[in-house]
């Protein structure tokens, strides 16, 4: 029979009503709270019984205190005098239980209780959520900027989708918790003023659990979609992230055990978090990935030397090659056809370039963009039509696109690039949910256009 069990309850810090209700239910099921740590709540088996819990907040303590302060111990003695035993505590939150049938509550003045919750929240819960909020807003602004610059590129990457969704969820969670707290505080103050009552706290446990679950699902989907070696890289990155968390936790707990002052421990914890995070992002992860990639065979690519420099030649399977359009003779080419694909879109780039010793031979450049949901098509097309709005082409004329006859290309719509009023040899071809950007080195005749449609259209 299991004598202990762990819970990761995801309660809002100030939700004393919800925490008390859950713990009282657990006591009736035969579980008593024993300890709270960074790894969840530990409960021990007891004989099922009705136990009263009281969650109180003691703002004078810090999560970095090396040991309970004299003031906290005196507070706990006061509580013990009325039968309240300390079950567990974390930072300012003190959780007591009482086995008496009708114990006198620890808090009998709602105004003082609200003041203590507010002071404790300002010390721990609120700064953390405001920091989350600020980071998520910054990330969302960056994401919006990237979307405005390269819409299809962003939505074609599962990594971008996952991080974007995660930051949006983090934004929503932090906003919900912050607004929830201030709304509860406002109601609480009003109730105290009108009838002196305490407004029960209301957390967002289910919503937080659902949103956390969504992040997990996104993460799993990302790992599956990346697959194989990239999935392994993701796993290593995640593992390294948890290693940082555990290291920071170890430093904090170690300093507390060695009796360092709370302020020193706090400062070192903050510095360690920042330094290790920077090391993680800038040094460790790229090195780990590099170390792994060195051992993987480079697919479809070789190297050649030209005038003492090393160049890469790709041999990817391009859907359209120059030789499909014209005679290339003996020219040696690099065939590059790579890109990214997400759950909602894909972006593939094709470049056929002659080797360096044969510069001057024709080359071929194109990109294939495809959306998996029709409603995204218009946004992608608009993005592509306006991506060179700030660019200038021949004779310093601004670049723009004009719709031209689509029939020769067997396409739904075709847009040709212009520099001012001068037509350029670059086209956007629409085939269903697919858009092809093509920039051949020479003007294509109708037969070649049909070949493009056959090879790159749907």
């Amino acid at each position: 029979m299991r004598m202990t069990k762990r819970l990761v309850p995801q309660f809002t810090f100030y939700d004393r009503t919800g925490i008390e209700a859950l713990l009282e239910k657990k006591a009736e099921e035969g579980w008593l709270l024993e300890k709270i740590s960074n790894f969840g709540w530990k409960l021990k088996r007891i004989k099922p019984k009705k136990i009263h819990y009281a969650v109180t907040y003691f703002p004078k303590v810090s999560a970095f205190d090396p040991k309970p302060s004299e003031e906290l111990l005196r507070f706990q003695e006061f509580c013990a005098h009325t039968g309240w035993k300390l079950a567990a505590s974390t930072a300012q939150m003190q959780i007591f239980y009482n086995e008496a049938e009708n114990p006198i509550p620890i808090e009998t003045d709602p105004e003082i209780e609200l003041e203590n919750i507010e002071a404790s929240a300002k010390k721990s819960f609120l700064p953390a959520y405001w920091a989350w909020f600020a980071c998520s807003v910054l990330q969302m602004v960056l994401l919006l900027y990237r979307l405005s610059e390269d819409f299809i590129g962003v939505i074609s990457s599962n990594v971008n989708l996952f991080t974007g969704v995660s930051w949006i969820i983090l934004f929503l969670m932090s906003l919900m918790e912050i607004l929830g707290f201030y709304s509860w505080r406002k109601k609480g103050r009003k109730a105290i003023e009108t009838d002196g009552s305490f407004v029960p706290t209301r957390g967002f446990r289910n919503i937080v659990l659902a949103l956390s679950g969504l992040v997990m699902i996104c993460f799993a989907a990302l790992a599956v979609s990346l697959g194989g070696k990239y999935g392994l890289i993701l796993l290593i990155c995640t593992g390294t992230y948890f290693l940082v968390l555990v290291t920071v936790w170890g430093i904090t707990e170690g300093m507390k055990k060695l009796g360092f002052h709370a302020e020193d421990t706090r400062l070192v914890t903050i510095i360690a978090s920042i330094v290790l995070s920077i090391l993680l992002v800038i040094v460790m992860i790229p090195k780990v990935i590099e170390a792994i990639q060195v051992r993987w065979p480079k697919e479809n690519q070789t190297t050649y030397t030209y005038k003492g420099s090393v160049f890469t030649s790709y041999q990817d399977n391009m859907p359209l090659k120059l030789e499909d359009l014209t005679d290339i003779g003996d020219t040696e080419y690099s065939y590059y056809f790579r890109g990214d694909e997400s759950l909602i879109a894909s972006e593939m780039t094709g470049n056929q370039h002659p080797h360096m010793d044969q510069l001057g031979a024709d080359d071929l450049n194109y990109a294939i963009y495809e959306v998996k949901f029709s409603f995204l098509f218009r946004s992608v097309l608009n993005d592509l039509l306006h991506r060179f709005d700030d660019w200038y082409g021949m004779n310093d004329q601004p670049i723009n696109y004009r719709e031209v006859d689509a029939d020769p290309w067997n396409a739904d719509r075709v847009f040709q690039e212009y520099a001012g009023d001068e037509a350029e040899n670059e086209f956007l071809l629409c085939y269903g949910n697919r858009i092809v950007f093509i920039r051949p080195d020479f003007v294509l005749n109708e037969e070649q256009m049909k070949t493009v449609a056959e090879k790159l259209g749907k």
Partner: protein
Amino acid sequence: MPRAKFQTLTEQMFYILLCLKEECYGLDILDRVPNMTGNRVNVGSGTLYNLLEQFLEAGMIRETKVEGRRRSYILTGKGREMLEKEYRRIQVQVSDYQRIFGEGEVK
């Protein structure tokens, strides 16, 4: 906005200060208030701890003895003034009631 601190006293504040007419350990107040009021008023341990801190800060009580974590307190002149002010406020309420309903007319 909540009422201004100590402009008026809650029942719990009133009885805690009343207990401190004579020197008293903080913990003992937890038993004295229910005894004094026939169990009509109870003060929670957390509430008492916080109120003693606030009374001290406001100069309404002062510490007389510190024995480890045990501390005893006594009412100061300011605390006594606050109690008297509250007493007069309650008396005005009583006399207002009597003026309206007449003395002794309580259901």
